[in-house]
């Protein structure tokens, strides 16, 4: 069909596909799945960090953290909006999440045990997210690409905040420094796992590359992340918990230990430390809000009916 030709031309020419353009069904489905998963991740990701808002150690940190978690809700909002341009409703997507038929990033199935985890999430998790997401700003689907530009800008702000938390801790009391190191020890490998399975085992990837949804392989992005973290860890005066981490002169990158992909698979399958807790939290928030949403709808209907008369 001429639509298909046009689509291929646009993608080849690094032009954007827009909602009203013809696109292959599989492209649409892939995008819906990916954008929805991304949106769900923002929403579920509010929980581990939200866990420390009430206990933030200063009012300034409390304000920063609350604003950050609020930003995540905002990201969720415009990612759902981007997905909606592909012909699904937010409600459908939320239901798919609640029924466990769509995923969110596995990283949020780890608990935040101390304040330093807020720093480590900012530095490592947001850092990994940025490495993953910057290429998505050039994604072939226009609404997604534009959403990602906004998301990335805020994420890099968040990453700096997390880095700053860790820096303060690692230059604070011995207890604070230990807390920071402990957090990095726990979050390092799960952050590496955020880039997904090694390229050999990655499904979906090739087609996504061809469609210019994805630009780099999982392993390339992971390498980029490691190379980015090493000098930062030095300034932070924190140790990356990998005895085999070292500069490889020949390759011009760092050698590093792979994360435990079997663990990643278990967590994706639902058996991480907090999968049940995160889903239960989301489900009960959704259920507890049902009467509120119904009230808002009923009120809007009454007002609309009154206008008609």
């Amino acid at each position, binding site marked *: 069909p001429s639509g298909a030709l046009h689509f291929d031309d646009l993608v080849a020419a690094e032009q954007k596909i827009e909602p009203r353009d013809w696109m292959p069904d599989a492209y649409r489905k892939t995008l819906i799945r990916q954008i929805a998963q991304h949106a769900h991740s923002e*929403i579920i990701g*509010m*929980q581990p960090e*939200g866990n420390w*808002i*009430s*206990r*933030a*150690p*200063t*009012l*300034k*940190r*409390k*304000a920063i953290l*609350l*604003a950050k*978690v*609020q930003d995540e*809700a*905002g990201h*969720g*909002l415009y990612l*759902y909006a981007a997905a909606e341009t592909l012909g699904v409703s937010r409600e459908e997507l939320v239901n798919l999440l609640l029924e466990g038929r769509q995923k969110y990033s596995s990283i949020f199935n780890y608990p935040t045990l101390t*304040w330093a985890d807020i720093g480590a999430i900012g530095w490592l998790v947001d850092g990994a997210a940025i490495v993953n997401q910057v290429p998505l700003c050039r994604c072939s689907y226009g609404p997604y690409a534009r959403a990602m530009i906004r998301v990335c800008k805020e994420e890099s702000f968040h990453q700096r905040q997390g880095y700053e*938390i860790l820096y*303060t*801790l690692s230059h*604070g*009391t011995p*207890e*604070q420094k230990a807390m920071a190191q402990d957090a990095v020890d726990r979050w390092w490998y799960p952050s590496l796992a955020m880039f997904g399975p090694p390229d050999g085992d990655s499904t979906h990837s090739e087609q996504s590359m061809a469609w210019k949804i994805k630009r780099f392989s999982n392993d390339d992005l992971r390498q980029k992340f490691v190379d980015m973290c090493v000098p930062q860890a030095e300034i932070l005066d924190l140790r990356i918990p990998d005895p085999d981490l070292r500069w490889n002169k020949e390759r011009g990158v760092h050698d590093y230990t792979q994360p435990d992909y079997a663990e990643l698979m278990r967590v994706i399958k639902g058996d991480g430390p907090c999968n049940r807790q995160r889903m239960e*939290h989301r489900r009960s*928030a959704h259920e*507890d*809000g*049902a*009467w*509120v*949403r*119904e*009230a*808002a709808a*009923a*009120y*809007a209907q*009454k007002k609309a009916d009154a206008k008609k008369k």
Partner: protein
Amino acid sequence: MNDLALADDALIAAQRLAEWCSRGPELEEDIALANIALDQLGTARLLLTRAGAELGRTEDDLAYLRTDREFRNCLLVELPNGDFAVTMVKLLFLSAYQKLLYETLAPEDDIAAKAVKESAYHLDHATLWVLRLGDGTEESHRRAQQAVDDLWPYTHELFEPPFEALREGWSVTVEPVLAEATLARPEDRWRPTGGRAGVHTEHLSRLLAEMQVLHRAHPGATW
């Protein structure tokens, strides 16, 4: 005017509102509640800093190292969140009061001047929701009326001397909202009080235990 009382109202309100984070009835509301919490927290920080300057104490000293007997907030803000109706009715009562109070202090007081605008937004938001809940479904009406009945007694404390004069303006703001929301205005009977003198409900010390735990566990640390 006592900065500390106003600051503590805002700080405790912020702490309670932030408890909603990731628990709102819809995503937009999560964002709105966080916004309002951030506004309250922002005002609290400015007021605490000003109050602390006289005492040689920082905002964090005042927020994290006082016991509940030293907090001066009204009881209304420390009550548990309850359901969304309780939170919204509480916000209606509180923001109508804060707006009036800040208006009387502004424009000489620059913190109050900034806070007036924010309070107006909080009041609008709470008003919208009280209308929706009161005039929404049977269930939402029942919950909203229960919230109004439960919280109304705590509004008397807001207008204890020297603020008796503000009550009328407050009623003029709040009562038409209740009426339009088809909610009955309760009788004036019980008048719980004590917050301004540091005699709180049993809820405040638990709220502070959580809020202060980390700060207190590391005396003198920088964060």
